[in-house]
């Protein structure tokens, strides 16, 4: 259960939002909406613990995420604007190393299977810089499956994806939620996934 109370965000001298409350329970997902520059990404980065809120507190299962620190990060997965992929490495290596950084084991067979599911069959050994934007995005999203996190924080996960991939990702999120997972995401289009809550900035 993720809860936040009285969040205030100040960027430079501008106050983006203040006194924001939100709560996400298992099986629910939070759709963060707002215009460009309204502070969607800032809110997401606060929820991950990367950015400090000017005021307010964020709790995970009733404990402050500052106190939980590593325990919170183990339960949470954040995928941001950036690829977080190394262009020189292959999708397989990228997935394996990402898992290793998280201190998790990832068998090669599982990694190959996930990449196949994401439609990257035949590109497992190609350096990422030769992939298209959409394909890079899929490599990144493959981490959703390999890293078993309870809370997904996704910044614009649907950009650069084709219709098929969007459907697949929506299905993936639905599956995650019905397993008792939670998700927070920003997106410009409305997604027909059950358990939706909306926050407007």
């Amino acid at each position: 259960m993720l809860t936040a109370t009285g969040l205030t965000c100040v960027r430079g001298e501008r106050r983006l939002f203040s006194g924001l409350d939100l709560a996400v329970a298992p099986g629910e997902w939070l759709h963060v909406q707002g215009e460009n520059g309204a502070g969607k990404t800032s809110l997401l980065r606060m929820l991950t613990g990367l950015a400090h809120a000017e005021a307010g507190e964020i709790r995970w299962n009733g404990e402050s995420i500052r106190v939980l620190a590593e325990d919170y990060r183990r339960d949470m997965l954040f995928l941001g604007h950036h690829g977080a992929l190394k262009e020189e490495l292959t999708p397989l290596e990228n997935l394996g190393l990402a898992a290793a950084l998280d201190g998790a084991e990832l068998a090669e067979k599982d990694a190959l299977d996930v990449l196949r599911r994401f439609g990257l069959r035949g590109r497992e050994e190609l350096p990422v810089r030769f992939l298209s934007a959409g394909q890079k995005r899929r490599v990144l999203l493959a981490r959703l499956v390999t890293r078993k996190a309870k809370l997904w924080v996704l910044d614009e996960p649907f950009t650069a994806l084709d219709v098929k991939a969007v459907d697949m990702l929506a299905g993936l999120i639905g599956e995650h939620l019905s397993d008792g997972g939670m998700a927070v995401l920003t997106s410009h289009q409305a997604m027909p996934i059950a358990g939706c809550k909306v926050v407007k900035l």
Partner: protein
Amino acid sequence: MKSMLAIIRRDLLLAMRRKSEVLTALFFFMIVVSLFPLGIGPEPALLRKIAPGVLWVAALLATMLGLQRMFAPDHADGTLEQMALSPTPLGLLVGGKIAAHWLVSGLPLVLLAPVLGLQFDLDAGALGVLVVTLLVGTPLLSLIGAIGAALTLGIRGGGVLLSLLVLPLYVPALIFGAGAVDAHISGLGAGGHLSLLAALLALAVFFAPWATTAALRIALE
């Protein structure tokens, strides 16, 4: 611990795929060292006298070259964010990155130094001491440099600023490193210098990753 090894392995793999960067720093080291006799003249006694200082200053500058790229690529592609959010403590991962930086840009200098020392007419004993000082000293340079690299992350004109911040902090390493070789040549024995250099290294191993981590968190915010 496993994650630390993983990040070392990753950075080494990346360095292998971008060989040119590593080699550039190495050639820079060779060229700078070789320029000194050309500028000063080939008199062996003089060259022997300046050799420790020249080799150390050149090593210092060569490590500076790679420093800026220690965190910048990871910062640009979002990997650094993922590292900060990984369940592994960021300090460990940073330690791994520093170790990788040393393996890529410090260790080759250590191995190359005796060959370049021959150009300066150093005898076998002095060469041995030189290698030992660099072996202890270059990790120190990587550790201190990491703090500067993290502080200047994502700042315009970061490269020049980085050298401004880091070079004054390199002074003790330079003094004890070059001093050890000097002391050996003049028959005083390098022990005192070396143990001080080792003490500095121990101090830096303890503090530098911590300071670097704090600086990185600030840069990510």
